[in-house]
């Protein structure tokens, strides 16, 4: 595809925000029709729609920044990019797993987003501050929902606690990538465009670690991964081959 400027730190940062929301939204949508309760079926369909809506706001900024048409460029990015050109973190591309796994992934990510967006609202890059302010208010509902489930399952039965603890042991190493700066990030931090990732990590841990402990979960001691956003698991390729299948057959197909 054309117009893909991998060299600008701001472009990459915005693309990372957009891709995280899109891929998690896609994973959330996989619960539609299959969640353990009707209410959760509805909740996860809503979460999916919200996250994809948030992605579209970020993709619009990506389009604006690269002087592309905002009505067509986001679709180009989403439906024609190869997995290696996606800039999402790995935790959002992992398969849904069991219910505990999906709920915990959502919680860890919601807490990261809320911390991140609360800071981005003060960005010196006004379009970024505007979008972050818009999304942050909606995220209040996400964390309220996901945290209540973490608590309920963590303090629930031996079975629910065991599943939640297993999910935490598996997901925890991936959370290191939330705070792994991309190339050129220091330029963005110095100009006040984005928050310092070390500070974000402290804020996130300050909220998440005590909450998990209060929910009868043991926070693993395992080291967390510091992978770049250019590295993906094989799961992303499978996800995209499904998501992009219609566009690859007929890019102009209407809905």
């Amino acid at each position, binding site marked *: 595809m054309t117009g893909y400027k991998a060299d600008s730190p701001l472009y990459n940062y915005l693309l990372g925000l957009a891709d995280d929301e899109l891929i998690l939204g896609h994973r959330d949508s996989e619960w539609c029709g299959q969640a353990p309760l009707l*209410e959760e079926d*509805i*909740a996860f*369909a*809503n*979460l999916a*729609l*919200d*996250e*994809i*809506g*948030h992605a*579209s*706001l970020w993709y619009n900024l990506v389009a604006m920044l690269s002087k592309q048409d905002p009505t067509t460029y986001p679709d180009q990015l989403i439906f024609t990019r190869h997995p290696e050109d996606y800039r999402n973190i790995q935790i959002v591309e992992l398969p849904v797993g069991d219910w505990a796994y999906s709920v915990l992934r959502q919680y860890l990510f919601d807490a990261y987003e809320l911390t991140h967006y609360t800071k981005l609202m003060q960005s010196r890059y*006004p379009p970024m501050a*505007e*979008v972050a*302010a*818009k*999304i942050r*208010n*909606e995220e*209040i*509902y996400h964390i*309220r*929902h996901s945290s209540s489930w973490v608590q309920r399952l963590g303090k629930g039965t031996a079975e629910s606690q065991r599943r939640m603890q297993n999910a935490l042991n598996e997901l925890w190493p991936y959370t290191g990538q939330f705070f792994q700066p991309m190339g050129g990030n220091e330029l963005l931090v110095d100009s006040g465009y984005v928050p310092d990732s070390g500070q974000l990590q402290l804020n996130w841990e300050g909220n998440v670690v005590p909450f998990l402990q209060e929910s009868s979960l043991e926070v693993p001691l395992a080291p967390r991964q510091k992978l770049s956003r250019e590295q993906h698991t094989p799961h992303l390729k499978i996800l995209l081959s499904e998501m992009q299948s219609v566009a690859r057959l007929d890019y102009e197909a209407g809905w």
Partner: protein
Amino acid sequence: MDLNDIWHLLDQIKDPEIPVVSIVELGMVREIQLEDQNVVVVLAPTFAGCPALQVIQEEVARRLYASGAGKAEVRFTYMPPWSSDDITPQARQKLTAIGLAPPPKHQGFIELALLEPVHCPYCGSSNTTIKNSFGPTLCWAIYYCDNCHQPFEQFKPL
């Protein structure tokens, strides 16, 4: 077509998911620019992922053209973000009348507003329980009234 006509026209356009209130009553219309019958309408979207947004955008343009606009453009703004506090008092009454509890005023403190009791739109009781923060549309939550035993929906504070 003057500015008043355009406000009047926009006040006829309902939210497709809540067909009793208009986009003006919801507080979505931020600005109207009119120059030689060319119109720009600036809207503040409610929830970012709202699927009704595109329907509303197309409907606004269609009605403006039908009323003689030379050019009709609909733009979106997120600054400041749309707030449920912008819903007019009349619209709040209309929501209650169809069994949709209006959002509490929050003045930016949504987390605090969520702690307040929600009144049942049927009997007015505050003896209600939240069943799901998510409902049939992005902007609704599902409640149950423990007084009159009626499930109902709430327009979420945002």
